[in-house]
């Protein structure tokens, strides 16, 4: 099984209009910048984008918003922390004007919904969000005297993820806190496209250290490591 693509544009070429896409990464750690840019060049429209944030570290996503590719955003920390900085963001303007619909989940629920999807479970009961606006429209149920909310699994069409190392069979090893959403997003999506900084032959990665089993990754493409300094303006 050789899942390697040489062209990043070919790797995203079949993403249709209306697709749901989850995008890994947390600020400078593990964000698949080049795949996001390829998606902007590809120009698929009416996309549902599930990503931690449209704020810092994901400036490349702005292009998707500016080009009108995003119909709906599912996030856990959608905006810049700074209201001033946020006011200048294309995403916040699109949300205010109603051009982009937003859904927000607590971070743990956000990723657990994807984990459930990848794991073939339909739903789960979490204590997070009880008594808050996050419980709107959700079933609340008591187990052993404590209240929980029913959250449904989510199975996106595509995942765009990034890892430090990958082999041609799709096995991935992440670096430090860049692991974050990558394993569970890869498992949740029907087609996972991974950019890796070093693509090696099967057998070169330590099988006890693999963070994303290759079965979850359908396409892998080698990209240059982009260098960022993690500071928030």
């Amino acid at each position, binding site marked *: 099984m050789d899942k390697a693509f040489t062209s990043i544009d070919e790797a995203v070429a079949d993403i249709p209009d209306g697709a749901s896409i989850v995008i890994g990464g947390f600020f400078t*750690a593990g964000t698949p910048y080049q795949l996001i840019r390829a998606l902007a060049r590809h120009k698929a429209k009416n996309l549902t984008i599930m990503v931690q944030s449209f704020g810092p570290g994901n400036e490349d996503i702005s292009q998707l918003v500016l080009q009108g590719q995003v119909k709906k955003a599912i996030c856990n920390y959608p905006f810049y922390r700074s209201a001033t900085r946020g006011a200048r963001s294309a995403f916040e303007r699109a949300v205010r004007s109603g051009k982009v619909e937003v859904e927000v989940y*607590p971070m743990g629920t956000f990723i657990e919904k994807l984990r459930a999807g990848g794991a073939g479970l339909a739903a789960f009961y979490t204590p997070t969000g009880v008594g808050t606006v996050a419980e709107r429209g959700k079933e609340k149920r008591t187990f052993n005297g404590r209240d929980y909310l029913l959250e449904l699994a989510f199975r996106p069409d595509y995942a765009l993820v990034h890892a430090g190392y990958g082999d041609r069979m799709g096995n991935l090893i992440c670096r430090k806190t860049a692991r974050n959403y990558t*394993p569970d997003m890869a498992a949740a999506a029907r087609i996972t496209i991974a950019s890796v900084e070093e693509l090696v032959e099967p057998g070169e990665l330590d099988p006890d250290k693999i963070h994303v089993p290759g079965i979850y990754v359908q396409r892998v493409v080698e990209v240059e490591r982009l260098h960022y300094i993690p500071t928030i303006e």
Partner: protein
Amino acid sequence: MAQQQKQQKKLEGLSRELIALRIANELEDGTYVNLGIGIPTLVSNWIEGRDIVLQAEIGMLNTGPLARESEVDQDLINASCQPVTELPGCCYFSDCESFAMIRGGYMDAAVLGALQVSEQGDLAGWNNPERGFPEHIGNIGGSMDLAVGAKKVIVAMTHVTTSGEPKIVKKCAYPITAERVVKLIVTDLAVIEVTDKGLVLKEVAPGLTAEDIQSVTEPRLNIAPDLKEIQL
């Protein structure tokens, strides 16, 4: 209002750094702790060398101090998006595992910022409606999971808003993060415990009286029999 502002000027309290120090003193050795964004992050400056393991909800245990310039690694950041370092015994895991850990009750304490805290211990910290989004849209991040999952939630905040309004209130006006979770409030002016019988004022900043604190606190404060100056 004019009177309140006058009062606010009078009530000079601890700096953000000293609020963080007071909280550091509250943390026990041999525990796992998560620090939220803002003042809570400063707590890390006061626990170096102590037997406290910090969790970063992005997926790390035993997070070290902020990285100096030469140490910065874009793949090693905390949930406040700051470059950090490793301490011996650190480990990495997925965000999903991180929140499993948080909901699973493994955090002995979480130190969180807040916009408001109610006398029942409700925490409001994730959404400032003044930003103009609908009530259910805002930066929740990991706050709701931490607030329900941690064994002890400690709030670190200024006692009043920049315009002098009390942030400790009878009922939160802002969208809440979680119900009845705050156990301790540490502000620039006071240390207040949330108990089944209401708020208990335990400590006050140097030079302040219980009456001073009550004057900038909406709900009625019970005064601890051993009320003292904030222990630093």
